[in-house]
């Protein structure tokens, strides 16, 4: 009879009573299977604790604020200066934290990770795509947007720096699916969301004019949209739309 995972974990964590601990130790001394299983559980613990952590803002500002608030609390109502100091410290902390997180979480994403965003389509003919009255991308729901940010490891990023974009635009038959969504930097880079919109419009016009088949357009944009842009606009840099 082998030990349960729960007994093995309680043993590892030193949470067994001395009697049970003695029984578990004696069993482990005899049983390779349970020893191996306990090592697997130990490895799972190691894997979990080794996960990298997010960097945190420095403690100085928050510590100063706490001191000021405790001091105010101690001194009573007539100490307006401490209140002022507290408010100033709070403002400074807010600014510092905002700046820290804004910088720490700002990563430029110009092309999607193909493993996370391979692209996904719905079954539509080019006729159906071109007859769609509203060719604009619909808004991505907040929950789904958050999931995309998490997948790309930018869960704490400022949303305003990114546009959660469809890799294959719904205007070209792209699906409303997380595998077709990615957080594109919206203005930081040369190859930004507006440039991709330009390509999407162009490819759709080609498809609807019968000059390009829908599957090719989808494949080209899902493969590498920047390469597709260069190919279809015959240019190495984004064209001026003005």
């Amino acid at each position: 009879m082998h030990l349960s995972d729960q007994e093995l974990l309680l043993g590892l964590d030193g949470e067994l009573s001395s009697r049970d601990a003695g029984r578990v130790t004696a069993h482990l001394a005899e049983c390779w299977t349970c020893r191996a299983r306990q090592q697997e559980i130990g490895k799972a613990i190691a894997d979990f604790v080794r996960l990298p952590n997010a960097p945190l803002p420095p403690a100085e500002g928050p510590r100063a604020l706490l001191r000021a608030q405790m001091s105010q609390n101690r001194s009573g109502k007539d100490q307006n200066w401490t209140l002022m100091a507290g408010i100033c410290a709070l403002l400074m902390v807010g600014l510092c934290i905002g700046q820290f997180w804004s910088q720490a979480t700002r990563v430029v994403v110009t092309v999607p990770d193909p493993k996370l965003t391979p692209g996904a389509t719905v079954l539509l003919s080019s006729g159906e795509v071109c007859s769609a009255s509203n060719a604009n991308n619909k808004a991505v729901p907040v929950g789904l947007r958050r999931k995309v940010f998490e997948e790309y490891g930018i869960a704490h990023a400022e949303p305003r720096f990114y546009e959660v974009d469809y890799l294959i635009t719904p205007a070209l038959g792209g699906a409303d699916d997380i595998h077709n969504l990615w957080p594109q930097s919206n203005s930081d880079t040369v190859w930004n969301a507006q440039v991709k919109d330009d390509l999407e419009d162009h490819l759709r016009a080609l498809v609807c004019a019968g000059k390009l088949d829908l599957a090719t357009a989808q494949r080209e944009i899902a493969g590498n949209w920047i390469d597709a842009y260069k190919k279809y606009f015959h240019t190495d840099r984004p064209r001026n739309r003005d």
Partner: protein
Amino acid sequence: MADARTGIGVYAGIAANKAPSALEREVVEQFDLMRERLLRYLLGFGLTAQDSEEIVQETFLALFQHLQRGRSRRNLRGWLFRVAHNLGLRKRQRMRATEEVGDSVIDPAPNPEDQCAISQTERRLLAVLRALPEQDRRCLSLRAEGLRYREIAEVLDMSLGAVSIALTRSLARIARSAER
């Protein structure tokens, strides 16, 4: 215009008020010891960094008042996690009411620069963690912070057996994902 003596007097008064008491020093020591751990725990609620930092402030002010009233110093670590946990839950409920937070909550993510370089194993592990029930994930986080099962049970208002089952279940899932 104030004379020099008045000016000096005011300044001295402020300095005297600024001198922290032994209790304040003790709270600041606890703050230095526990701030990051509480902050990471709160980020796991899906709260923003700013909100988490505010809750940490509120938690330590509560500790200050708790000690000021001469209450127990027993297991302050567990006490801090419990207060932060309750404040975090309350904050999240308010945010949900105004739809500022999504349904899914994750453990604190690595910073994006690191994320770019995180291994396949870490990605897999993060996916497993995201799929865990929220309470199981909290048990894991608190255990990783060094809390004993009894302390975790108090913070999360669970039975001792439920903590042990949650931890076993989570670690079994992590171990299973490594086998694939």
